[in-house]
């Protein structure tokens, strides 16, 4: 949350992360990365690794979505258009070029990202002319246009969909290739998110979230900033969509362009914490396995939707800003309360300064998601 303030800023910083806490955070990320890399060695059950692949796909998509919507406050509900574009790019090209199944197919994954981001340019130019609710509705509408096109064009196989090459890998460890391909996509999406967050570009996005017109009046070229973030976000989603197509072996318009995908990644980001780095990851890791579990347990595949709906209500009621900000706040508030107490004992009085409200309130105001 405080990550953007440069370390050279000399003033005292209430509620800031201590260097120790920062190091602990770095270690936590390293452990998390190591766990993700070692995962296929620890779990060999194909059911579990299959769930893991889907989870990684959603972790990537949610991270990429958050790097646009979470930072800029523009809630896009049409990223499935880019997911499907990536998926179809791989499926159509490998079919037309008669690419044999195997590792070679993975070369089409970055291509899926490129085509998705190219598609995002005109979409962004149109949709980003609108704001707030209108923007949400426009992105949904554009998404359905993509779905209709995929259903009706002959080169996409119309409603019967498109096959991807079948690799001749043995069943043991079959999923691992897709797992690592998705993991690379996640690494790229995370790297892009971190890069944006630390850069001046990211600062401009956050300024747009708070007050777009004011940002424009301070020299921020808002249209360009929004469009670049939108396109970058579509790139990662398109890549992981291509992995998804190859993993499934067969894609259909209604699944590659799935409106539920839009709602799911948004819900994951909201659950974990909109605009944070770890929140979307956490949200995806909680919800996607849950969905897969429900799908496996109850043959009626839509039970999870009821759970999603209920969960969404609980999140809004109890943690409207998501898990990560809620927990961070809780910890910060406790720390400040403890240090204030120590100060009071030392000074013999309430040691608060002229600033009206303490850092706990500060964090709350800072992290309200989305709207004005």
């Amino acid at each position, binding site marked *: 949350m*405080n990550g*953007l*303030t*440069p370390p*050279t*800023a*000399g*003033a*005292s*910083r*209430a509620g*800031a992360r201590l260097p120790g806490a920062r190091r602990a955070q770095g270690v936590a990320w390293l452990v998390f990365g190591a766990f993700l890399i070692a995962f296929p060695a620890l779990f060999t059950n194909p059911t579990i690794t299959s769930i893991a692949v889907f989870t990684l796909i959603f972790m990537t998509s949610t991270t990429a979505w958050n790097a646009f919507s979470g930072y800029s406050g523009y809630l896009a509900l049409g990223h499935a258009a880019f997911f499907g574009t990536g998926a179809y790019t791989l499926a159509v090209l490998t079919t037309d070029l008669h690419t044999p199944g195997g590792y070679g197919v993975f070369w089409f994954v970055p291509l899926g990202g490129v085509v998705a981001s190219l598609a995002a340019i005109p979409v962004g130019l149109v949709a980003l002319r609108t704001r707030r609710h209108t923007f949400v509705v426009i992105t949904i509408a554009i998404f359905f246009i993509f779905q209709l096109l995929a259903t009706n064009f002959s080169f996409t196989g119309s409603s019967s969909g498109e096959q991807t090459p079948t690799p001749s890998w043995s069943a043991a460890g079959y999923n691992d290739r897709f797992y690592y391909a998705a993991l690379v996509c996640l690494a790229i999406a995370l790297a892009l998110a971190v*890069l*944006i967050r*630390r*850069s*001046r*570009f*990211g*600062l*401009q996005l*956050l*300024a747009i*979230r*708070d*007050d777009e*017109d*004011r*940002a*424009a*009046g*301070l*020299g*921020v*070229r*808002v249209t*360009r*900033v929004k469009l*670049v973030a939108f396109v*970058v976000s579509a790139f990662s989603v398109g890549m992981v969509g291509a992995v998804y197509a190859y993993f499934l072996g067969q894609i259909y318009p209604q699944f590659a362009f799935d409106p539920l995908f839009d709602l799911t990644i948004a819900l994951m980001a909201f659950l974990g914490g909109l605009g944070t780095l770890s929140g979307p990851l956490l949200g995806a890791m909680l919800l996607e396995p849950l969905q897969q579990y429900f799908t496996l347990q109850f043959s009626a595949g839509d039970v999870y939707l009821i759970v999603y709906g209920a969960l969404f209500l609980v999140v809004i009621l109890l943690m409207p800003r998501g898990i990560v900000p809620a927990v961070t706040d809780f910890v910060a508030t406790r720390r400040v309360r403890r240090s204030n107490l120590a100060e009071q004992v030392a000074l013999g009085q309430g040691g608060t*300064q002229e*600033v*009206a*409200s303490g*850092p706990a*309130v*500060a*964090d709350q*105001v*800072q*992290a*309200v998601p989305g709207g004005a």
Partner: protein
Amino acid sequence: MTALLEVAGVSKAFGGLRALDDCSLSVAEGAIAGLIGPNGSGKTTLFNVITGYVRPDAGSVSVRGETVTGSSPARLFSLGVGRTFQLTRIFGRLSVMENMLVATQRHEGWLRSVLRRAASAAEVNHALELLDFVGLTRLADLPAANLSYGQRKLLELAYVLVADPQVILLDEPAGGVNPTLVNEIRDRIVELNASGKTFLIVEHNMEFVMQLCADITVMHQGRAILHGPPSVVRTDQRVLDAYLGGDEDDEELDDDVAVG
């Protein structure tokens, strides 16, 4: 002295309402110019036209002789026209320092802006100097939403200064601010003016305007009806009529905060 900012014959209508009607105004370089008028007389609309937020139906705006009518707010800011808002507009969820850095101008492509860190040490130091100038250094790392109303006004002034503008438009700098802070804001304006900055100030606090501005333009019903020093403005019959015989006091209700 040459005119730094020149507004010629600007008109703007919102539906049937003529917010600006052939309005002209010029601000000399190095001046602290005042802009007064009853509520709804078009002051804020004129600000919006000058800073590119509103495109005029007719007329032109020029800065140092260069016509800038209809340019984007971002471009006008980079041309050296800075502006604060009547109701302060800061980035509440960013820290005070981050607010400052948003305004830092840097000419670079989008790729570089993604790859480079948000601010260099020099940019941070410059921002800290300006925060020091308005007395907010202590609060640099607080979310801007925590600042008081007056502190927000100071922050707005500070981040407009980041880009080193030539002319600064202040929309009610003293409105709704406690008297001590009003003095603080006035001192800062005088100091900046001494270092060469030009100001155009909209303000309802007459004492504030009369003390600060050598040059006052009075607006009424979308027109500039009078231009002159405080002594003339104070006694002119048209000004008294505009204020006392006013018939459109229901506009811009939030203007009322700090009259007198």
